[in-house]
């Protein structure tokens, strides 16, 4: 909205000065909060951040060494999560945007579910993961395939990843739907005019154009999944493991959980403080890099679309 055309020619009204100052100060305060958090973490985290910190395991009761297992666990978690969440999320978005009648009862139910899934508290996802994936699915698999031995019926990487996939599903759906609605109707008509079926149009014309938007969704989901802790508290995260997870039913370490444990359960806070700051810095850099790349991909996509629309 351009305000230049609306600005009166005389000096601004005193009410405008007050409102501008008040809202501007509030905006500034929000930016200052962000800056203070970032500066504090960077200033205290950078000195301890070495290559060894990123590539070694924690030692001496987590007061020395690095965080490599936590980085490895986080990456493994988000990869598995993406594999699970992406197909379901993209399919839901395609259905909502391409197939469903917007006013149909079923469509409204799906929409309500998507919107409300995004608002379910993350700790509830944790309990759901424990009750459903670990005990029901995992326990069921143990009964069927392992004669009741505990293999899958305990907190594990795969259950944490699936729980996280459910949590990030709405992120993927919303981003994909936006991407689909940005595909110009012209190309759909052109494809139909060439005799392509609806499915062919979606698979070969619409989806390829929506790929940047879907990628944005995937990146945002990964960023969310990398930072969430509550859903994995009971579904697979561990304080400390001597070895890396080497199968889907192993437990794993994760950056966010590592931060939580170091910050709250450490017997010697002063000894762990530098490590803690460095870990937080790694986690922040990771999520910021992901968010920034999502923003870049999205703005590229918008620029590209606005250009191709003339």
């Amino acid at each position, binding site marked *: 909205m351009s305000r230049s055309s609306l*600005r009166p020619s005389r000096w601004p009204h005193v009410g405008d000065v007050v409102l501008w100052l008040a809202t501007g100060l509030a905006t500034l305060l929000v930016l200052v909060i962000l800056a203070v958090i970032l500066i504090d973490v960077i200033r205290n985290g950078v000195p301890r951040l070495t290559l060894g910190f990123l590539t070694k395991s924690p030692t001496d009761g987590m007061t020395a060494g690095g965080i490599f297992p936590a980085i490895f666990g986080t990456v493994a978690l988000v990869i598995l999560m993406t594999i699970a969440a992406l197909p379901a999320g993209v399919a839901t978005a395609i259905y909502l945007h391409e197939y469903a009648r917007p006013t149909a009862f079923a469509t409204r139910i799906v929409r309500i579910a998507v919107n409300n899934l995004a608002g379910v508290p993350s700790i509830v996802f944790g309990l759901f993961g424990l009750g459903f994936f670990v005990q029901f699915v995992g326990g069921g698999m143990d009964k069927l395939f392992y004669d009741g031995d505990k293999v899958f019926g305990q907190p594990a990487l795969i259950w944490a990843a699936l729980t996280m996939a459910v949590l990030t599903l709405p992120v993927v759906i919303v981003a994909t739907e936006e991407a689909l609605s940005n595909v110009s109707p012209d190309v759909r008509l052109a494809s139909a005019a060439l005799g392509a079926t609806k499915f062919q149009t979606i698979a070969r014309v619409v989806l390829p154009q929506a790929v940047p938007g879907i990628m944005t969704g995937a990146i945002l989901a990964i960023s969310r999944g990398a930072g969430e*802790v509550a859903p994995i508290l009971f579904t697979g995260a561990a304080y400390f493991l001597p070895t890396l997870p080497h199968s889907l039913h192993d437990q794993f370490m994760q950056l966010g959980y590592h931060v939580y444990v170091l910050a709250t359960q450490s017997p010697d806070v002063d000894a762990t403080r530098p490590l803690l700051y460095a870990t937080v810095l790694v986690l922040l850099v990771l999520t910021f890099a992901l*968010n920034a790349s999502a923003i870049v991909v999205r703005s590229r996509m918008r620029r590209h679309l606005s250009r191709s629309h003339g």
Partner: protein
Amino acid sequence: MNGNNLEPVRLPNRAPRPTLASAPSGVDTASTSSVSAERPETMPSQSPRRLASRRPPLVERTTELAIRVLAYSAVAAMVLILIFIAKEAWPLLTSATIHREVTLAKMWFIQQWPGYDAPEHIWQPVSEIPKYGVWPLIVGTTKVTLIAMLVAVPLAISAAVFVSQYAGHRTREIVKPAIEFLAGIPSVVLGFFALMVMASWFQDTFGFDSRLNALVAGVALSFAVIPVVFTVCEEALGAVPRSYVEASAALGAARWQTITRVVLPAAAPGIAASIALGLGRAFGETMIVLMASGNAALLSANPAESVRTLSATIAAELAEVVFGGPHYTVLFALAVLLFVVTFGINFIGDQAIARMKRRMGVAS
């Protein structure tokens, strides 16, 4: 028409038609010769399916079916979440073993505990006589949520007004990504910051007895709420039709008069929705309050005292309980409560957004 080869032969160097010049190369994969031969004048209004002489191939139909089934994954997730947390909480209503230790009535109504002078609401599940009074947790949750909302709502709405009404293009390009970054900070990092840094500042400034308290947790929680409220609110303000603003200006209203009397009232449903969604976030947030609130289940209105919220209680206690025992069951019951309340709040928020979109759609 034969559109049934999944990997059809690519027609080499067909003379490009100008109308399709911008279409991606994928278009030419559908074999077009038969269609272009019989291309009717009414083509755009006619469904391409109707021209198909045969049904689409099996792979296509299977994939479409898969899409339709997968589309219900979100619905399935919601239903399964409710079923599986309710299932674990159910024995609270039915099991006699659990009733020996705790009942719904004992959770909600004041109890006279042995060794206490007067009846009290107490949450003390791990003790000689386990006590499951939920009111300290509910009051704690309310207290922290209220503080977070009191801080976040004015800041976020003001920032949204500034960005959408006063800020120039360049300012907006700084503020909006910055707030997206704030939204991207993991809550465990905000909790960490509250625990390590803010708690000390607050104690030095206000001289609180307990370093971790409702105020620290509430203010830290507001950092997570601000982006939610800001984003929805900014969108609502931006959706107010230009004609409203121009009409107001034409009547001689100053900018601030237009904002306070035209733009804000027009965006009111969206602003209400932003507050509801922020409330849902604050109510269910776990890690920040778990780390910064002190986690003492006290029944008190004092914001300088430690509090224990519903979500933090679940997170802190579930790891140490006996599977299927009374404590385990009660924690799942608390999760049902969290789920139902946040569902209600978010549902109201979404309805408000939908109404706003309809209203703006008609008005603009």
